[in-house]
């Protein structure tokens, strides 16, 4: 699905990513863990095409295409979805309006006709049920006056509607109570299929109990210092990130 090679990136001249190599095959869920400031969110943003990060070295191949050469909207239409850590509010624009524009942008990109209004609403009805949102909520302004948990549910709702090939979920689990966490997890699991891949960026093991990843990677100071199966999350939970400095040294040597 996606292949990241020797990716270096900086923001305002400060290096954040210092050579990331990551391979995610079709159908797999990979978790990326690591302490604050290790570069997890930067990686997610770069994959989605955020401008303030400058890629100084390396390449990203997505479905055989040079991902870094595509504009953010092209990446989205090619099936890359970013679940935002802090989803923004867009006053006066209803969630449904934005979503319909998003669905149609994809269709246009692929040379398909616009979505039929009835069909669209049926889809909405079905998907909001999965995430426990009401029709009233999705008719409101985008994330307007939503609680933190509601915003995250909304991200998952959008993901379900857009059915991306690659979902990059940036700390979608942070700040969620257990009910919301379960909703988010079931949303992610619902989309799991041999054609789709997911990158879960997270601090904690909690989400990984509900969405069992194929692989876990540990990011530290801009590098992946350890990779393993789902059991790596348990190890990290027990030992913390304290031992990572030795790993870092190992990775460098």
């Amino acid at each position, binding site marked *: 699905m996606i292949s990241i090679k020797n990716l270096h990136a900086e923001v305002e001249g400060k290096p954040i990513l210092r050579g990331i190599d990551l391979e995610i095959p079709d159908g797999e869920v990979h978790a990326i863990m690591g302490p604050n400031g290790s570069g997890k969110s930067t990686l997610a943003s770069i994959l989605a095409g*955020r401008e303030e990060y400058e890629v100084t070295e390396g390449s990203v191949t997505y479905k055989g295409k040079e991902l870094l050469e595509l*504009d953010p909207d092209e990446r*989205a239409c090619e099936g890359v*979805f970013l679940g935002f850590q802090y989803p*923004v509010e*867009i006053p*006066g624009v209803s969630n449904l309006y934005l979503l319909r*524009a998003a669905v149609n942008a*994809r269709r246009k990109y692929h040379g398909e006709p616009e979505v039929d209004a009835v069909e669209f609403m049926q889809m909405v009805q079905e998907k909001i049920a999965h995430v426990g949102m009401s029709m009233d909520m999705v008719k409101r302004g985008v994330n307007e006056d939503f609680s933190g948990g509601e915003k995250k549910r909304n991200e998952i709702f959008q993901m379900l509607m857009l059915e991306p090939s690659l979902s990059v979920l940036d700390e979608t689990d942070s700040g969620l109570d257990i009910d919301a966490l379960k909703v988010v997890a079931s949303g992610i699991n619902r989309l799991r299929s041999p054609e789709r891949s997911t990158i879960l960026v997270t601090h904690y093991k909690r989400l990984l109990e509900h969405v069992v990843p194929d692989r876990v990677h540990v990011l530290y100071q801009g590098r992946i210092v350890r990779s393993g199966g789902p059991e790596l999350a348990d190890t990290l939970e027990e030992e913390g990130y304290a031992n990572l400095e030795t790993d870092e040294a190992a990775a460098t040597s």
Partner: protein
Amino acid sequence: MAAHEDDVEALVAEREYEAGFVTDLESDTVAPGLNEDVIRFISNKKNEPDWMLEWRLEAYRQWQQMKMPRWPHLHYPPIDFQKISYYSAPKSAKDKPKSLDEVDPKLLETYEKLGIPLREQEMLAGVEGAEYPTSGSNVAVDAVFDSVSVATTFKKKLHEAGVIFCSISEAIQEYPELVRKHLGTVVPRGDNFFAGLNSAVFTDGSFVYIPKGVKCPMELSTYFRINAENTGQFERTLIVAEAGSHVSYLEGCTAPQRDENQLHAAVVELVAEEDAEIKYSTVQNWYPGDENGKGGIYNFVTKRGDCRGDRSKISWTQVETGSAITWKYPSCVLNGDNSVGEFYSVAVTRGMQQADTGTKMIHVGKNTKSTIIAKGISAARGEQSYRGLVKILPSATNARNFTQCDSLLIGDKCGAHTFPYVESKNSTAKLEHEATTSKIGEDQMFYCQQRGLSEEDAVNLIVNGFCKDVFQELPMEFAVEAQKLLNVTLENAVG
């Protein structure tokens, strides 16, 4: 023939220089300059009764004592009022483009995007010889209707309801008592410099009279006003709603209009008697000039409504996207007890456009209520100021006002300024003011783009959301057009 006319004009201009002002009463165009003879000429041309001429002359005398306001946050070269021609019949083709080839290509591009047919483009661009067969009014829906038959049907329907809707020139002839009773009672001749000038030299405009208890059976649009040509420069509009009546009036059009007259100074007066309601909607899209602001319209407008009767209501909604300079403060004087004033505005400045616009709400009666929602959008090198006054007089017990002004900046070379004035002389008044200024958020843009929207679509989506509170006050068709207009206006604004 055009050359011949030019020669005559040049001669006239020279003679004026040598020997003072000369007016040729037989010609259709008066040489530049303003004095009492010119006003007599205009009044004479229009066959006006003596009282009207006297009224104009008195306005002119007052105007001579007045100075141009210097307080607006606007920059433009001084205007020489003696260099303007105050009466020119539409057939004066001197300054008109001969064909669309001579029109600013940017303007044509906009027409294209708004889907305006060629013939109408010529009309709007003021191309020589391009006139509507029966109506000189400028609204871009003509392609849809046969204007003659529609207008006739509408006239009949209005007549049955007892509604008078005609040009102000016609009203001065046909309904002199009504005009005389109300003209200048809301905006007096000496009110301000531009209102004074307009009172002296106004050429035409609309007159609307809704009798007692009548709900006007349709929305009145300048479009359906027959005989309204060449009213652009000094337009005068008077709307009178008698007790318990109701009217919605639409002015302007979404297609950008060119005009050979650079200076525009209109006056609009609204009178609402007891329980009457007037809704006045404007889409102003005068030519803003080319990239350097050259050739753009200077728009100095005085609009005021008088909520004269108890429980009356006046509501202004405006979408301002055109003109090089906009100076405009549609206001309400809330005289009647329990009367209501509203102001909803979207103003856009881009390119080199400047706007100093807002409203005044003057609370006189008890329990009067006003709402102000002003949305300003600045892009490129556009400069915009919101200027609003809320004044509570001692008599206005329990007056209430809610003001919200939001500014949206696109790019980093534009400006937004807010000048709110509040004067309260009654301690029972409740006033609320909210103001925000935001740059079109990179986060919002990225969010939309990440969902698949192009940069252009993302801007449109965010801007339309920003303006929603105002657009929903517009009549349906107008709202759709206004939204489209805004999208076209802000194209390539981010980059």
